[in-house]
C-alpha cells in the first residue's frame, strides 16, 4: 500500500506541479499572444506610417524643388518690393536709392545737361548763395524746378515777411547812449509771437507757391537768409555794442560786439572785433541800410576815419 500511496502522491504532486507550471505557461502564453497581437498592430502601423513618410518625403522634395525654382526668379529686395507696391513714389528711403537706381538700369549718361537725383540727396546739400537781396539764386530755382511765377511768389513772401519784421524792429529798437559800457548800444528784443506769426505766414506762402516738398527743401536752403538777413523774424534778441579800447600804439580804437541770444536755455552767439566801416553784421544791415555811417549819423557822432580792415 505504501507504494500505491507513494505513487498516488507522486501523481498528485505531478498534477500540482504541472498545474502550477501549466498556469504559469498559460499566463506567459497569454502575455505572448497579447504582445504578438500588439506587434502585428505595430507592424501594420509601421507599414502605414512608412507609406505616409515616403509620401511626405516626396512632397517635401517636390516643395523644395518648387521653392528653389521660385527662388531663382526672385531678384528684388523685399523692402524695395514693399516700396514699389506701396505706390507712394514721392519719396524713396535713402538706403533704397542705390537699389532703385540699379533696378531702373538707366544709362546715366543719357542726358549730358541734366541728372536725376533723389529727393533724399537734395536734403544732404546746401547751395552756395541761395538767396541774395531777397532774390532766389538761379541754382536754387534750377534745383527745385521753380518756375518764374513761383519765384515771384516766393520772393514776395520773403520780402513781405522781412519788411514786417523790420518795421517792428525799427519801432522797438532800444537804444543806450554812451556809458561805461561803451559809446552806444542797440538792442532789438525778441518778439516770439511776432516771429511765429511771420514764420507761419512765410512758410504758408512758400507752401502755397511750391508745395510741401520744396518748402521743406527751401527751409534748408534759405536758413542763412532767415538767420541773418531776416533776423530770424524776431525769434532772437539782437544787440550791438560799440566801444573803444587801446590799440597797439596806445591810441583808442573802435570795436563792436554783436550778440544774438534766443534764450538762457539756448545761450548766445555773435561776433566782435575792430569796427570796419564797410562791414556791418548782416543781422543789422537791413535795419541800417546806410551801414555804420547811418548809425553814427543817427547818434550824432562823427564817424572817425578808421583804418580799413585790410590795413
Amino acid at each position: 500500500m505504501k507504494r500505491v500511496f507513494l505513487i498516488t502522491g507522486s501523481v498528485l504532486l505531478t498534477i500540482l506541479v504541472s498545474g502550477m507550471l501549466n498556469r504559469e505557461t498559460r499566463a506567459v502564453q497569454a502575455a505572448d499572444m497579447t504582445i504578438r497581437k500588439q506587434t502585428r498592430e505595430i507592424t501594420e502601423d509601421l507599414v502605414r506610417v512608412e507609406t505616409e513618410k515616403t509620401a511626405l518625403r516626396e512632397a517635401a522634395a517636390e516643395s523644395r524643388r518648387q521653392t528653389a525654382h521660385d527662388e531663382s526668379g526672385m531678384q528684388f529686395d523685399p523692402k524695395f518690393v514693399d516700396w514699389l507696391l506701396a505706390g507712394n513714389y514721392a519719396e524713396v528711403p535713402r538706403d533704397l536709392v542705390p537699389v532703385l537706381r540699379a533696378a531702373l538700369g538707366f544709362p546715366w549718361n543719357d542726358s549730358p545737361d541734366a541728372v536725376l537725383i533723389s529727393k533724399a540727396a537734395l536734403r544732404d546739400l546746401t547751395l552756395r548763395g541761395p538767396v541774395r537781396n531777397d532774390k532766389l539764386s538761379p541754382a536754387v530755382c534750377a534745383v527745385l524746378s521753380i518756375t518764374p511765377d513761383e519765384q515771384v511768389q516766393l520772393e514776395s513772401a520773403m520780402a513781405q515777411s522781412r519788411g514786417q519784421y523790420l518795421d517792428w524792429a525799427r519801432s522797438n529798437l532800444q537804444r543806450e547812449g554812451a556809458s561805461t559800457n561803451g559809446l552806444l548800444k542797440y538792442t532789438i528784443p525778441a518778439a516770439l509771437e511776432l516771429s511765429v506769426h511771420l514764420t507761419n505766414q512765410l512758410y504758408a506762402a512758400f507752401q502755397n507757391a511750391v508745395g510741401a516738398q520744396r518748402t521743406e527743401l527751401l527751409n534748408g536752403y534759405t536758413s542763412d537768409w532767415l538767420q541773418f538777413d531776416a533776423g530770424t523774424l524776431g525769434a532772437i534778441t539782437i544787440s550791438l555794442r560799440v566801444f573803444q579800447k587801446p590799440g597797439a600804439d596806445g591810441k583808442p580804437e573802435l570795436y563792436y560786439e554783436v550778440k544774438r541770444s534766443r534764450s538762457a536755455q539756448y545761450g548766445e552767439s555773435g561776433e566782435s572785433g575792430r569796427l570796419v566801416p564797410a562791414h556791418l553784421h548782416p543781422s543789422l544791415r537791413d535795419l541800417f541800410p546806410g551801414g555804420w555811417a547811418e548809425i553814427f549819423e543817427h547818434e550824432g557822432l562823427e564817424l572817425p576815419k578808421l583804418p580799413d580792415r585790410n590795413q
Partner: protein
Amino acid sequence: LSGSLWVSMNERLTDFELLRDFARKGDQAAFAIAVRRHLDMVYATALRKTEDAGAAEEISQNVFVALARKAWQFAADDSLPAWLYRATLLEARDWLRGKLRRQRREQIAVELGTTMKTPEEETALRALVPLLDEALESLREKDRTALLLRFYESQSLRDVGLSLGVGEDAAQKRVNSAVEKLAQFFQRRGFRTATIAVTAAALQHTAASAPAAVTASVTQAVTQLAPASAAGLTAVLSRFAGLTKVQTVALCAVIVVAPSVWQWNVWQTAKSDAARARAQWEVRRTELETVRADIEQLRMDSARLNNSQAQQSDDQARTEEARSKLATLKERLRRLLAGSDSRWPDDLPFVRIPSWTVTNLNPQYATFNGSGQLAPWVSEILNLSPDQTEGVEQNLSQYLESLNNLAASRAYETNSDVNFSKGFVTKSVAVPALGDDGKQLKNNLITNLQAIVNNPDGTALILSPLSSNNQWVSLERMGDELNRSTQQFTFGVNLDDPDDPRFSFTWHGHIGQSGSRTIPMRIPDFLREHFDPWLRGFGVTNDVFKLPSS
C-alpha cells in the same frame, strides 16, 4: 499431481509470484501453495500465543483469509513470512483480549516468574516462550524472516537463502546472528540462562506443524475465496503494489519528473517565445516611434515648405506686380530725364537738375570717409556708374594710405612744451611739411579722379573735404595742412582714476577731441603708431581708438 505441482512450484515460484498469480489471475492453486508453505509458522505462532489449538486454527484461517484479501498489495521485495507472522500476532492478540484469557495469562506469568529462577533448562525454555514473540518483533525484518523460515517453517538453509535473496552460507550466518540477537534480547530482560542454544531450543520448541486437518480446513477455506479483485483498479493497484522499492522510486520519479520536466520545458519555451516576441515588439515599437518622429519632422518641414511656398508664391506675385510698377516708374523717370519740361515731380522719387548746378553745391556731409568710401549722394549727384564709383573709391583709398605712410615716415616725437590741462601726461608728435611729396600725391589723385569722373566740377566736389575749412581730425582734412607746414599733435592721458583714464588730443592750431574708454578717439593711423605703445606703458591697452573707417 498436487504433490508434484507443489514440489515443482515450490522450486520455481516465490511467494510474490504465487500471490501475484492469485491476485491477478485468480490462481487458487498458487495461493494454496503459499498457504501450505507458511501455514506451519502461522499455526505455530498462533498456538504459542494462545496455547489453544482451536484458536490457533481459527487464527491461521483468519490470517490467510486476510492474506487473500491483500494479496495484490504485496511487492517482490516484501517478506510474506514477516507479514504473516505480524498478522498472526495481531490476530492472536485480538483473540487474547478477552478477560478470562488475560487472567489466565497473568497466572502463567506468575508461574513463569517463579520458574525463571529454576536452573533446569526446561524451565528456562518455558520461561522464554511468553517473551519470544516480543523478542522476534524486536528483530529487523530480515532477521525475523530468517528465523521464521528456519525454525517455524523448517526450511533448509538453502531455501531460507532463496527467500532472502542470498546464498546458503549467508542464510546460515543470518540465522545464527538472528538467534544471537534474540538471546541477547532475553539476557537484557534478566534471563541469564537464555543462551544461544537455549534460545534456539525455544524456537524449535515453539515450532509446530499444523495438523493435517487444520491444513485441510484452512486450505479449503481460503481456496474458496476469490481474490479481492482481480481486475480494474485493483489490478492496476496490484501492479503498482507489486513493484520493488527501486521500481517504485523510479516510477515515482518518472511520474513526478517527466510531466514536470515536460511542463517546465513547455513553460520555458513559452517564456522564450514570449521574450522573443517582446524583443520583436520592442524593435517594432522603436521603429514605429522613430518613423513617427520622422513623420512629425517631415510634417513640420512640409508645413514650413508649404508656408514658404505660399509665401514665395505671394512674393512672386508681389514681385511681378512690383516689376510692372517699376516699368511704369522707369518710363516716367525716363520722360522726366529726357523731357524739356522741368516741373517739380511731386509724385516721383527723383528730380531732374541741370548739370551746371553741381558747381553751386555745398555738401553738408563729407563726400567720403576715412577709408575712401564715397557718400551715396555723391554718386547720385555726379551721375557715377557703379564702376566709376568703385574706381573713385580705390583712388581715394590709395591716396589716404599713401598720405598716411608718408606722414608716418616723417613723423617724430618731440618734447616741445605743450599747454595742457592739469593732471594730464602728454606726448607730442610732429610732422614736418610734406611739401612736394604730399602735393604730388594729391595731384596724382586729382588726375586719376578726373580721368574717371570726367567732370572738373565733380572732381572738385569729391575733393572738397581735402580743402575743407572744417577741421575734423581726419587724414583727408589734414592733407593740405600737412603739405603746407609742420603740424604738431599732442595726446594727453589723465590717470587720476586708473580704471577710467581720460584722453585728450590736440592738433595744434586746429581742433582737438576728448575721449575715454566709452568715447573712443578717432585719429589717423600714423599717429596711433606713436601713441599706442606709449599708452600701453600706462596699462591702457584697448578701447582708446576707433579705426578711421569705423
